[in-house]
């Protein structure tokens, strides 16, 4: 076992443990803090894939923006759940069965797939090619239309979030 594999196993263990804590934590605030650790672990997993751009994007977008958003929402709505001791709804055994069944099915599919052992492709000198990604996102023969649709989606989501969350009666 190489050093990189040991590092990956550590990252995976920390990430999965904090993901379990997100689901199991009693207080929403604690769940949000565990979520930040899980997101950092995912960023580290991206780094082991040599996708350094997305590791940085993960920290900036998820740990930076989305985690702050979730913490604000948790703080704004904190009072309502504190007197309710049960954090799981009544159907949680069925949910556990569904999640466990999906995991078992996925592992069964993986065990029958032969592409598992394919070695990693060679990256060019200096790691991943960010310039190629930028060109692919903005070239008309590449992914210009999905890129513009994604920008439109972001604008629509921003306006919608302001409209829904803002108190417009005042």
């Amino acid at each position, binding site marked *: 076992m190489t050093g990189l594999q040991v590092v990956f196993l550590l990252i995976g263990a920390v990430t999965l443990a904090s993901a379990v804590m997100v689901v199991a934590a009693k207080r929403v605030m604690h769940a949000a803090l565990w979520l930040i650790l899980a997101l950092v672990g*995912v960023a580290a997993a991206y780094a082991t894939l040599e996708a350094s751009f997305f590791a940085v994007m993960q920290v900036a977008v998820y740990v930076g923006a989305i985690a702050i*958003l979730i913490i604000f929402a948790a703080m704004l709505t904190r009072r309502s759940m504190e007197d*309710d001791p049960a954090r799981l709804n009544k159907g949680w055994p069925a949910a*556990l069965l569904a999640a466990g069944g*999906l995991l078992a099915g996925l592992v069964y599919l993986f065990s029958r797939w032969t592409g598992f052992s394919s070695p990693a492709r060679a990256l060019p000198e200096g790691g991943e090619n960010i310039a190629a*990604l930028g060109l692919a996102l903005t070239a008309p023969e590449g992914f210009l239309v999905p890129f513009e649709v994604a920008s439109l989606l972001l604008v629509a989501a921003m306006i919608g979030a302001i409209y829904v969350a803002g108190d417009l009666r005042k």
Partner: protein
Amino acid sequence: MIPLSWYLIFAACLFCIGLFGVLARKNAVTILMGIELMLNAVNINLLAFWRYLWAPKADGQVFVAIVIVAAAAEAAVGLALIISAYRRRQTVNANEMDMLKG
């Protein structure tokens, strides 16, 4: 080198933990956290397949970029909805958000 299978099994575990959170938790904010975990698992899969089967072409990374955009939009709108519902009903319990029930 880390085998591709490790990434896939890691992502599958993360996805299933997130799915359990979405299905089982009462608090709407925690349900959104479960959705974020599921989206992250998808991104790990996409990046792993890009790295092992598609690099150095950039196509696989474009998917990840667009999934991150969609996740940001989803988080913003979802949390706005939760705050709006909290303002009207003083609750974030998903079982009590039944205004649309016939």
